[in-house]
């Protein structure tokens, strides 16, 4: 190989290559080889294959690290870094892609949309996430972000015939582009400060200036705006409910999980990398944002009647919790972020997938009433949903509790008692609206007699998320060890 593209570069790139490759393959085969409706499932197979190969590559990276006994290795002269952190998050992305792919098949059938572009875009989005988790260069990160965002813009608007889908897409696009404008403005200033786009150099450069240096602050502020927008933190959260509601439910699931996880990876990279020296500047900022996010998320969710919207607000509040981990900033906190993102992925995916199952021919199934009497209609879904909701509420022995546990512990360790109490009380508020859902599922009368949509893929996906949500809660040890390896600051 050439000097500019060494084998190590290749090694570091394999998962992304696999994703992109199979993504393009799907685009092509969609109309070249499998035009017939019957053959669509092959496309899904390609997605699964792509994810599998990517996972294999990831696994090899893991092996490599542990074999070498090194914490990390960089590629492309520092544009890319493979470390526990990136691997951990990439696993999450891949699993999310896999699950969403499985669940989407039936949904697309019902919506009567095309499969090929959809699967392909999912994989390209995942490709973008890959660079968000691994990139250590402003440009890489920026391009990765754009790639992911672009795919999501399209997928959110994927139901071209549906006004709500269009509208969601437009809103998401406009605000997304707007915010990424700020983000990249901040990047440009960072570049100006360091004369380089490598995170490492920037860290050094910023560390050399005094904490409250105006230019550092300019960079920090604008970057923060972009990042907070991506994780939908108050006051940059307002796109989320609309986009979540309008988007196809499977996409909503993917958006709420994949995009959020990736953005958090991104966020952590930036805040514990270049911006770490300016910690004392952004600490109060982030605490305030976290509180506001939890408040808005929880309070607004109370009076929602549309499940997707309700879950959207709930995911906003979860972003607040995760931010608290960054506020605490100690190893527990960072580990907390990792664990929280992990469990959040599964429980939130699961919750949305149940909503997916509620989408039937000519039943939208997005309102609380549509859940009515789900327990009688299909106990399985109801109980799974119950598990997901309990987990979202953070009640042991479900997985959600672990995330909260770490956040609380981290806050107490760093002496943020007020934040801890506040976060704790918001748990009660959250339970209130989660249990509105539980109530309509178990106590209200049946809304309709139409059985819930179901397919092998969907069942598998639901089962997977449900089992994981419980398993992580009951026996979290292996997962905690996995999260342990992902600690950035050693």
């Amino acid at each position: 190989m050439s000097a500019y593209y060494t084998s190590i570069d290749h090694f570091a790139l394999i998962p992304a290559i696999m994703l992109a490759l199979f993504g393009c393959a799907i685009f092509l085969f969609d109309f070249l080889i499998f035009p017939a409706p019957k053959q669509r499932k092959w496309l899904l197979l390609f997605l699964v294959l792509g994810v599998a190969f990517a996972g294999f590559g990831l696994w090899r990276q893991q092996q490599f690290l542990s074999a070498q006994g090194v914490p990390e290795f960089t590629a492309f002269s520092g544009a890319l870094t493979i470390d526990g952190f990136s691997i951990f998050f990439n696993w999450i992305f891949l699993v999310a892609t896999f699950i969403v792919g499985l669940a989407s098949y039936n949904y697309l059938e019902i919506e009567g949309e095309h499969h090929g572009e959809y699967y392909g875009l999912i994989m390209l989005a995942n490709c973008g996430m890959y660079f968000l988790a691994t990139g250590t260069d402003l440009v890489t990160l920026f391009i990765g972000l754009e790639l992911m965002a672009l795919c999501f813009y399209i997928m959110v608007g994927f139901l071209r015939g549906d006004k709500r889908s269009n509208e969601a897409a437009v809103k998401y696009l406009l605000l997304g582009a707007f915010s990424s404008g700020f983000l990249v403005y901040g990047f440009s200033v960072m570049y100006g400060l360091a004369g380089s786009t490598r995170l490492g150099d920037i860290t050094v450069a910023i560390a050399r200036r005094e904490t409250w240096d105006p230019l550092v602050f300019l960079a920090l502020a604008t970057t923060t705006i972009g990042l907070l927008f991506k994780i939908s933190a108050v006051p940059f959260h307002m796109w989320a409910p609309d986009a979540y509601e309008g988007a196809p439910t499977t996409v909503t699931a993917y958006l709420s999980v994949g995009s959020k996880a990736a953005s958090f990876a991104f966020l952590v990279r930036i805040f514990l990398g270049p911006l770490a020296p300016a910690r004392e500047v952004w600490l109060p900022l982030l605490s305030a944002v976290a509180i506001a996010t939890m408040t808005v998320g929880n309070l607004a969710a109370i009076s929602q009647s549309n499940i997707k919207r309700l879950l959207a607000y709930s995911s906003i509040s979860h972003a607040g919790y995760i931010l608290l981990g960054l506020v605490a900033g100690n190893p527990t906190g960072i580990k907390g972020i990792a664990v929280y993102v992990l469990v959040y992925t599964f429980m939130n995916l699961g919750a949305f997938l149940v909503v997916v199952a509620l989408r039937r021919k000519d039943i939208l199934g997005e309102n609380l009433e549509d859940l009515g009497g789900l327990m009688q209609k299909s106990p399985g879904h109801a109980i799974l949903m119950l598990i997901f909701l309990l987990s979202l509420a953070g009640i042991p022995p479900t997985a959600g509790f672990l995330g909260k546990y770490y956040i609380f512990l981290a806050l107490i360790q760093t002496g943020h008692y007020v934040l801890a109490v506040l976060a704790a009380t918001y748990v009660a508020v959250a339970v209130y609206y989660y249990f509105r859902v539980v109530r309509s599922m178990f106590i209200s009368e049946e809304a309709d007699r139409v059985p819930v949509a179901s397919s092998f893929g969907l069942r598998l996906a639901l089962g997977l998320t449900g089992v994981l949500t419980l398993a992580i809660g009951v026996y979290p040890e292996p997962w905690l060890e996995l999260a342990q390896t992902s600690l950035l600051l050693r």
Partner: protein
Amino acid sequence: MWVDTAFFYFFALMTLAGGVLTVTRRSAVHSAISLILSLIGVAGLFLLQKAEFLFAVQIVLYVGGIMVLFLFVIMLVNLDQAARERQFNRQWWLALACVAAVGAEVAYVLYRGAGAFRLGAPAAPVSKMGNTEMVADVLFKQYLLPFEVASVLLLAAVIGSVVMAKKRI
């Protein structure tokens, strides 16, 4: 020396004026035209900053590419009735206030920053390579990865716009 200064102010004026017009013109077409004006101004600034290659990219890609796209869309969706309505929404004054506030703050930050803006001695003295060579060199060495990813990005963009725009697949 003063030539540079003059040129700077000329292009700066052009850019800003173009920008302002873009934002304020009633008809979308006019806005597009004024955007082109502003973009050309920016290109000029690139020239002033010894970024010849960028200048070319700006002209070809932006003025020649993106703007055509915009105009095309504007033609496609005939907005004449929209053009007759008022072009600002109800919250414009609020928006203006906010933007003014942010502007003031940013200005203050920059003013404070002006002093602090002595970024060490300029790095390695300019090599004898031409600008384009240097760009190419850096692009394909340091930024090989983003370059590759960008291709994927564009692919996604193409597919996306196709998926979105075509009537039925």
